[in-house]
C-alpha cells in the first residue's frame, strides 16, 4: 500500500469510523460555540453564504441568522444530527467538496484539518476551502495545537482516545444515534451555570476511577458494566451538572493531571483520595498540589523531538493501561479539549520547522522522511505503515466492539506557525489576515485573493 492509501485507511479507521461510533456522545459534548468562531460568523455581512466544512452536530449553523449556512460533514450520523436541528447539511469529503468555485462568502473549518494524515492532504483540504470561497471572502481554520499547557504530545501524529460512556456504548450497540436522556434545551443551557459542560465524561471518570484497575480489554468490559450501573444511579443530568457546579471544579482533574499515574493504581488511588479531599478546599489549592505532582512532565519541552527517559517510561507504562484519561468535553473557554493520554501512540515526527521555506510538497515530504530518519521513534517509516505494523495486523480479525482502539481519533497536532506556513507556501490564493493561538488551537483567518497566472 502506498502512502496515500495508508493515510486513507488510517483516516477511515481512526477518524471516520470513530466519529460514526461516537456521534451521539460527541454531539452531546459539543454545544458551546467557541467565541472567536462566533465572532467570525457574526461579522459576516447579512445575506452571506457560509460553508461550514466539518460541521459536526451543527453547533455553528445557527449563529448569525442573517446569513445562510450550509453545513457538511463526512460523518453521516453527525450530519443527521445537525440536519435534525433544522440545518441544511450534506455528507461530503473536505478533499472533494461538491460546491462550485467561488460560491461562498466565507467558509469555516473548525477542528477538521488536523484529522488529515499527510501534509499533502492537509494542504488539499485547505485548497478546497479556498476554491469554494469567492475572492474577497474569508476562511477561518482551527486546528489543534501541539503546544498546550496541560497536555504533552509525544509526537505530532497521535491517537487520542475517546471515552465512550456506558449508556452510549449501549445505544451504539443498537446502532442508532439515540440521545438518551440527553435532551438539551438550548435556553436552559444558556441560563445554566457556565460550567455545566463539565459533563458526563468527567462524571463517569469520577465514578469509575477509584475502582478501576484496567490492564486489559476484558477488564474494561466489566468496567463498562459497572459504569453502566453507576451511571444509571445518577442519570439525571441536571443533578450531575449541579454537583460539579457546586464543587466549582474547573479542571478535569483526573484527566488533566492524573493520567500520568495510570499504571500506578495505588499511587493513583492515594492521589485520588487526596484530590477528593481537596475538592472542598477549592480549585486553587488543588491546582497547586497537582501541578507539583506532575512537575516532571510540565517542565518537559514538548517541541523536543527526542523522547527523554521520563516520557519513555510514561509511554511504556501507559500502554499497559488502555483506557480512561480521556476528556470528551469542551473546556471552560468553550474550546475543544481532548487529552492524549497513555494511549497517545507515537506515529511520527513529521513536520520540521526547516520546512518553512517555499518548497514543492514532494520536496517537503522527502525532507520529512529525512527528519524522521533521524528521529528516535520511527526511522524513515511511513506514518501509517508504522501504525499498522504495530497495532493492526492487516489480516487480523476485526476488533471486538469493546476494543477501545475503536474510539481513538487520529490527530496531527500543529506546531506554532505550521498552519500559517502551509497556507503561505502551498495555498497561493489565500492571504493570511490573522494567525493566532486560541486555547489549545492554532487558528488562521485568511482572505481569498485573485491570483493572476501569466
Amino acid at each position, binding site marked *: 500500500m502506498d502512502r496515500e492509501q495508508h493515510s*486513507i485507511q488510517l483516516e477511515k479507521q481512526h477518524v471516520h469510523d470513530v466519529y460514526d461510533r461516537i456521534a451521539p456522545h460527541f454531539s452531546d459534548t459539543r454545544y458551546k460555540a467557541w467565541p472567536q468562531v462566533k465572532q467570525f460568523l457574526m461579522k459576516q*455581512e*447579512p*445575506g452571506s*453564504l457560509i460553508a461550514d466544512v466539518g460541521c459536526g452536530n451543527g453547533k455553528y449553523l*445557527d449563529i448569525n*441568522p*442573517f*446569513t*445562510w*449556512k*450550509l453545513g*457538511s460533514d*463526512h460523518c*453521516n450520523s453527525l*450530519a*443527521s*444530527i445537525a*440536519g*435534525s*436541528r*433544522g*440545518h*441544511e*447539511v*450534506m*455528507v*461530503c*469529503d473536505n*478533499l*472533494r*467538496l*461538491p*460546491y*462550485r468555485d467561488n*460560491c*461562498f*462568502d466565507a467558509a469555516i473549518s473548525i477542528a477538521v484539518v488536523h484529522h488529515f494524515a499527510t501534509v499533502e492532504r492537509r494542504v488539499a483540504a485547505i485548497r478546497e476551502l479556498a476554491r469554494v470561497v*469567492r*475572492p*474577497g471572502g474569508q476562511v477561518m481554520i482551527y486546528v489543534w495545537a501541539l503546544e498546550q499547557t496541560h497536555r504533552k504530545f509525544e509526537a505530532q501524529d497521535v491517537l487520542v482516545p475517546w471515552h465512550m460512556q456506558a449508556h452510549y456504548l449501549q445505544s451504539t450497540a443498537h446502532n*442508532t*444515534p*439515540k*440521545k*438518551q436522556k*440527553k*435532551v*438539551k*434545551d*438550548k435556553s436552559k443551557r444558556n441560563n445554566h451555570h457556565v460550567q455545566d459542560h463539565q459533563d458526563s465524561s468527567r462524571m463517569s471518570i469520577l465514578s469509575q476511577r477509584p475502582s478501576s484497575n484496567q490492564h486489559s480489554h476484558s477488564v474494561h468490559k466489566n468496567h463498562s458494566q459497572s459504569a453502566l450501573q453507576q451511571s444509571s444511579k445518577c442519570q439525571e443530568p441536571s443533578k450531575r451538572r449541579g454537583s460539579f457546579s457546586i464543587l466549582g471544579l474547573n479542571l478535569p482533574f483526573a484527566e488533566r493531571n492524573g493520567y500520568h499515574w495510570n499504571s500506578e493504581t495505588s499511587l493513583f488511588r492515594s492521589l485520588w483520595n487526596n484530590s477528593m479531599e481537596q475538592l472542598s478546599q477549592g480549585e486553587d489549592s488543588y491546582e497547586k498540589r497537582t501541578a507539583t505532582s506532575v512537575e516532571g512532565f510540565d517542565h518537559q519541552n514538548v517541541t523536543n523531538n527526542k523522547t527523554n527517559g521520563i516520557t519513555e517510561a510514561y509511554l511504556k507504562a501507559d500502554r499497559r493501561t488502555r483506557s480512561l484519561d480521556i476528556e470528551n468535553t469542551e473546556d471552560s473557554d468553550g474550546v475543544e479539549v481532548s487529552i492524549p493520554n497513555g494511549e497517545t501512540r507515537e506515529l511520527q515526527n513529521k513536520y520540521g520547522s526547516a520546512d518553512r521555506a517555499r518548497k514543492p510538497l514532494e520536496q517537503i515530504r522527502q525532507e520529512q522522511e529525512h527528519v524522521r530518519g533521524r528521529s528516535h521513534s520511527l526511522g524513515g517509516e511511513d506514518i501509517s505503515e508504522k501504525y499498522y505494523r504495530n497495532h493492526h495486523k492487516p489480516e487480523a480479525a476485526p476488533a471486538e466492539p469493546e476494543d477501545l482502539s475503536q474510539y481513538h481519533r487520529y490527530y496531527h497536532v500543529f506546531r506554532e506557525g505550521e498552519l500559517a506556513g502551509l497556507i503561505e507556501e502551498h495555498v497561493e490564493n489565500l492571504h493570511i489576515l490573522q494567525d493566532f493561538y486560541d486555547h489549545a488551537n492554532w487558528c488562521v483567518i485568511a482572505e481569498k485573493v485573485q491570483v493572476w497566472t501569466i
Partner: protein
Amino acid sequence: MIALVPGLLPTCTAKQPQVKGCTSGSRKNVGCMFLSLRTTMRLLTHNMLTSHVKGVTNGYPLKLQAENIKVMSVDFNPEFVARMIPKLEWQALVQAAESIGHLGDLPRELVPEYESNEEFLKMAHHVLMEVEVIEGNLECPETGRKFPIKNGIPNMLLNEDEV
C-alpha cells in the same frame, strides 16, 4: 466581489428561515428540541452543488430528481432573498425548479430591479426556501453518477475510483 444589493436598509432584518407547521420529524431517533424540524434540501443548496467526479468538466448543474417533496411555509424576508439572488446561477435554479414541477410563475430570466419587486422576490423566496426535497437523487450531467438524497441529506461522497 459580490455587489451588495443597493437600497437595502442598513439594519437588515433578514432571518434564517424557520420551518413552520412541520410536525412530523422523520428522524425520530434523534431526541432533541428540534425534533419537529425535518432535514431537507432546499433549491438554494442545490444551486451551489456541482459534480465533483474525477475528470468531469461540465458537472453543473446537477440534475434534480425528487421522489418526495414538501412545501413548507417559511418567513418571507425580501432583503434576504434580494441578497441571495446575485449569488445564484439563475438558469440552474429555473431548471431545478422546473424539473421537480415547482417553477410556478417564476420568470426564466432575472428581472431588472428585482430587489424592489416584491412579487418577484416572493416567487424566488418560494422556490429557494419553501420547496424542500426529502428523498431523491442528484445526477451528474456528464457521467450520470447519482448522488442520493435521503432524509433530506444529500450524500456527495465519492467512491475511491471517482476521486
